[in-house]
Every structure is written in C-alpha cells, then in structure tokens.
C-alpha cells in the first residue's frame, strides 16, 4: 500500500496535512503531492479520516459543573493562593506514596538494627574504663586492654587490729585458728566445751552441746542497700573509714568510673554481726537510700545438726584408730580399716569447713552495697583525645558495617529458602490478580 520509493515518506505527508512541517519542507512535499497521485490520495485520506473523526462530538458541559467550580474559585480567592501547608512541601502532595512510606520504614528499620547492633557489640564499650580495687584500697588498672569491667573477688584476710579487738570483745568465743585454715575465714567454735570435748577425751557430748547452744539463736543476716551519693570519691573514703571502724572488710568491691556514665561502686561487704545496725545506719547516711532489703536466715538447727554429725564422725574415727592400735589382723583387714579412717577423716574436714563457713556467716553479716553517683557531665578535658575518639569511631563504624553485611548475608541464607517457598505459593494468585488488573485497566 505504501511505496517506499517516493521522495517523501508517508509520515511527512501526514505532517504536511497537519501543518507540522517547516515552510521549506512543506514546499517539497506540496510539490511532490502535485506530481504523485498516490501521495495525493494519501493526503486526502488523512484529511478524510480527520473529518470523519471530528463527527464524534460530546454534549455541552452540565450546568452543575459551572456552579461547583464557581464556588471553588470564590473559595480559592478568599484564601491566599501562595500559602502552602508544610506537609505538602515536605511530602509533595496530599497522599504519601508507597515509595515515601517505604523509605521511612527502611530508615526506621536500619535505625533499630543499628541500635541493636550497637548495644550487643563489645566494641561499643571501648571507651568504658572500669577500675578494680585491690585489697589495700588502691585503684588498679584492669588487666585486659579492652577495658572490660573487671571485678576481682578477694580472699581478704582480716587486718590484724580488727582481729585483736574482736577477740577482746568476744573473749568467750576466742579460739586459736588451727594451722592450715584458709585465711579470711574467721573460724571459731560455738563453745569451749565442745572444743574441749573434741580435742580431749573424745566423749560424746553432742546433746550437751545442743543444749548449751540452744538459748542463743544463730542468725545469718544479709542486707542489700542502694544509695545515691553526691560525690563518689568522698563516699568511698567514708566507706573505708566506716569499715575499719566497725572491723568489717570488703569481700569484693568494684568501682566503675566509665566515661559518660554515672560513677558507681558495688561491693559485697562483711560486717561483724554486732556492729551491723550501727554500720548500716552510717551507710544510709552516705546519701539518699534508694533501696534497702534486710533478711535473716535462722541457721541454729543447721548448725546443731552439723555439730552433732561432726561429733559422731570424730567418735568413729577415734574408735577406728583404737581398733587399729589394739587389734592385729590380716594385711587386707588392716588396709580396709585404714581406708575407712581416711574416708571418715575426709568427712570430718568437710564438715569442719562447712561449720566454719556457717559460723562466719553468722558472725559476719553480708552487706551488698551499691553506691551510685548522680551523673554530672564533665567539663574537663576528656581522657581520650579527639583523634583517638575519631579513630575509634571509624574502627567501630567499619566493624558495624561488616557486622551488618554479615547479618544481611546470614539473614538471606536463613530466611531465603522460606521466602522462596512463600513467593512460589503467593505468586499464583498474585499473577492472576495482576492480569485481572491489567485487563481492567485497559477496559474503557
């Protein structure tokens, strides 16, 4: 139908009919149409199509439109047309698009993920400085350079003056520490009679012991105290003075002076039971008490049982020794008796240790003390220089990036197969709906 050998293309003929050509081009096409009948008929055909199409008219605008738009114009005239709400400037219109909502969601997700990662990663605590306290009350630097909080439990032996004054006061309970007893565990017997019985004749007098120890109930006190203080340094000095005054000691003490955090002190203190009330009162005076719990555990019966069992065991040992000394028998039998003695000896030692611990708990109340300082922003020069901080932040940033990448990879590996399965399941209805949508869109 359309020949390609013509000087002008059919599209140019169409453009000529539409008056879309420049005057020079129009002249060329016009000249060609004058000669070429085929192109002339094509031009006529274009005109004919346009004419027949133009017969498709539409009715006049309904009156209702005039009225409603007139109203709108009046309303717009009252308002300042240049004023625009901020929301529409920020988000470009009345409705938020899916892309905008998606972006916001993604940012929130990243933010949350970043926060989670920050708090779970050990590098975030790089700047923290924790100081541990040795038993002389001197600050010592933590061993590992990473600066993780180090708390060093102490098997602190009692300072000797405290020991002396203690024995002065409770003279009736004084006992010689047997050699080999673990330092720091003040060991003493509940009664001299019992001691004499075990070391001496070996007569069983457990009942007598029980009867003797019955009137004084044994109670292991423990106190938990949280105090907010103004100045941790001063409070610490006061605490040290307090402890030495009351002949107590710190079983464990951790002082945290991390930068950017309120300084705090946490310690497990031991105070002689008799001094407990006075010591607690003084500790309360250090600042504002935030929390206090007291508890007492009745261990009288426990202790009496232990003493009785210990008694019996010693008696058994004694009898076995006598047996070994008096009787003669086969080597096998002798060895058996020796083994039995060993076993009983082990039990005795274990029970003795238990007794000591129990008595220590009664004699020395436990005070779990926590001192927290009100946080004040430090104006002084930060301990880490700016360049170090920048370097640390850079390294932390790199590590976080790496963690995020690994996390994303792990997530893809972990959730990928499941997601694929769901995708496959949902694809079928999705495709069907999409096709239906396209069909509806093309329907006029």
């Amino acid at each position, binding site marked *: 139908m359309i020949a390609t050998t013509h000087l002008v293309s059919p599209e140019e003929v169409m453009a000529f009919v539409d008056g879309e050509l420049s005057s020079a081009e129009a002249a060329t096409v016009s000249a060609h149409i004058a000669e070429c009948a085929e192109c002339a008929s094509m031009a006529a055909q274009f005109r004919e199509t346009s004419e027949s199409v133009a*017969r498709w008219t539409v009715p006049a605008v309904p009156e209702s439109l005039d009225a409603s738009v007139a109203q709108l114009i009046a309303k717009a005239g009252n308002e300042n047309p240049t004023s625009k709400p901020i929301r529409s400037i920020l988000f470009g219109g009345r409705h938020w698009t899916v892309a905008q909502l998606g972006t916001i969601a993604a940012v929130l997700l990243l933010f949350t993920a970043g926060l989670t990662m920050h708090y779970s990663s050990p590098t975030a605590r790089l700047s923290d400085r924790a100081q541990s306290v040795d038993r002389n009350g001197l600050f010592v630097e933590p061993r590992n350079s990473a600066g993780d909080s180090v708390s060093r439990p102490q098997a602190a032996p009692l300072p000797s003056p405290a020991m002396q004054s203690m024995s002065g006061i409770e003279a009736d309970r004084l006992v010689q520490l047997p050699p080999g007893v673990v330092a720091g565990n003040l060991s003493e017997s509940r009664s001299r009679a019992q001691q004499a019985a075990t070391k001496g004749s070996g007569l069983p007098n457990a009942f007598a012991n029980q009867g003797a120890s019955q009137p004084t109930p044994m109670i292991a006190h423990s106190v938990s105290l949280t105090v907010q203080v103004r100045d941790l340094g001063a409070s610490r000095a006061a605490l040290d003075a307090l402890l030495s005054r009351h002949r107590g000691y710190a079983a464990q003490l951790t002082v945290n002076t991390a930068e950017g955090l309120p300084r705090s002190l946490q310690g497990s203190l031991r105070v002689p039971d008799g001094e407990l009330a006075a010591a607690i009162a003084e500790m309360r005076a250090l600042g504002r008490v935030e929390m206090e719990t007291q508890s007492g555990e009745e261990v009288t019966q426990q202790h009496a049982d232990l003493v009785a069992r210990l008694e019996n065991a010693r008696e058994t040992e004694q009898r076995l020794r006598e047996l070994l000394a008096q009787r003669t028998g086969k080597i096998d039998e002798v060895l058996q008796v020796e083994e039995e003695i060993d076993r009983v000896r082990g039990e005795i030692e274990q029970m003795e240790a238990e007794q000591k611990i129990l008595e220590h708990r009664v004699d020395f109340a436990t005070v779990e003390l926590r001192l927290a300082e009100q946080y004040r922003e430090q104006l002084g020069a930060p301990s880490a220089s700016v360049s170090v901080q920048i370097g640390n932040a850079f390294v932390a940033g790199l590590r976080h990036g790496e963690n995020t990448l690994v996390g994303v990879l792990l997530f893809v590996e972990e959730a990928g197969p499941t997601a694929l399965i769901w995708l496959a399941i949902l694809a079928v209805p999705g495709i069907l709906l999409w096709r239906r949508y396209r069909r*509806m869109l093309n329907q006029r």
Partner: protein
Amino acid sequence: MKDLKPADKATQADGTPAGIDGRSEQRESDEQLMLAFAAGQSDAFTALFNRYKQPLFGFFRRRLADPAQAEELTQETFIAILRSAPQYQPSALFRTFLYAIALRILRAHRRKAAFRATFLGERPVGHEPASHCDPVIDLFMREAMAQLQNSDREVLLLREFEQLSYSEIAEVLSLPLNTVRSRLFRARSALHELLGAPAATRTHNAPVTEVRA
C-alpha cells in the same frame, strides 16, 4: 497564528458556539490569565475556566464511558490547577500544562477503578446511550478507539480532539517527537482501515451489530 487556530477549531469541534467565549476580541493569552490568577485575580481563573471547560469535558467524556465521572474528573482537574497555580511557570504553555494534569488525573482514576474492579469485583460502568449526538457515531467511535493500541490511541486523541501540535503531544506524554509522529501515523492508518467499511455508508441507519463484528 498557529496558536490561535487549534483553539478555535477545538471549540467548533465540540459544538460550542464561538460566541460563548466573549473575550475573543480582546483576548488575553492563557498564560497571562494564569499568572494574573496566581497574583490574586480570581476572575482570571473564571475566564480560563470558561475557555477550557468544554474542551476538558470533551477530553474526559471521550475517554470515559460514564458521563458523571467525566464531569467529576473535569472538576478535579480544575481544582488541581487552582491548587498548583502558585507553581505555574509561564515557560510551559497553559494548554500542555492543563492536559498533562488531566492525563495524570485520568490515569489515577483508571488505576483506582481497575484496582476496585480487580479486588472488589466491580465491573466498570457500562456505556450509556448518548443523547447529544448520533448514538451510532458515538458507539462506533468508542469501539474503533478501543481497537487501537493503548500507546497509539492517546496520541491520536490528543491530536484529533484536543488539537495539540506534535511538540505539545510530545511534552504532555513525555515522548520524543519522532515517536509521536510514528505513533500518530500508525494510529491513523489503523483508524482508516477501521473506518473504511462504514465510511462509504456513513448513514444513521447503519446497524450497530455490523460495526461490532
């Protein structure tokens, strides 16, 4: 010269008497009116509305089956222009600005309607017999337009009824000028084929069933 001619043709094509536009003798350009409105003269917009309400209504009326929706979208387009008047740049012709907005509103409407039809099972509104012009021509033209390819149809409609120039169509549809020309050519050739049969017997008693087949 070329600016005025298509507008006049448009009003004639839509069957509006030329006298309704009383400003033809001391006619301000559309762009001047738009700037005047942005500066606060609300009767400038009334003039624009009177000038374009019929072409715009025709624009929607030809593209939608439901006359009520055509009216609604016409109003919506004018509201959009009212709102965007402060951002109007006189570098763009008002006509292309108007039809670009109208097209955006039309597409949004179609998407919404298709979405509703997909998920709520609503069928698009059926065609109502038109009383204004020959119902046969109306139905026949709609059928013919439906036969065209989507991309070609819009170019043809903008050229034949909105009387936009090739470059204006290119701007409104964001297409290269050459694409507009080739699409228009393709659409016209197809339309010529479609109109070919009844063109000879273009009478009022042409049976509709034959047209459909």
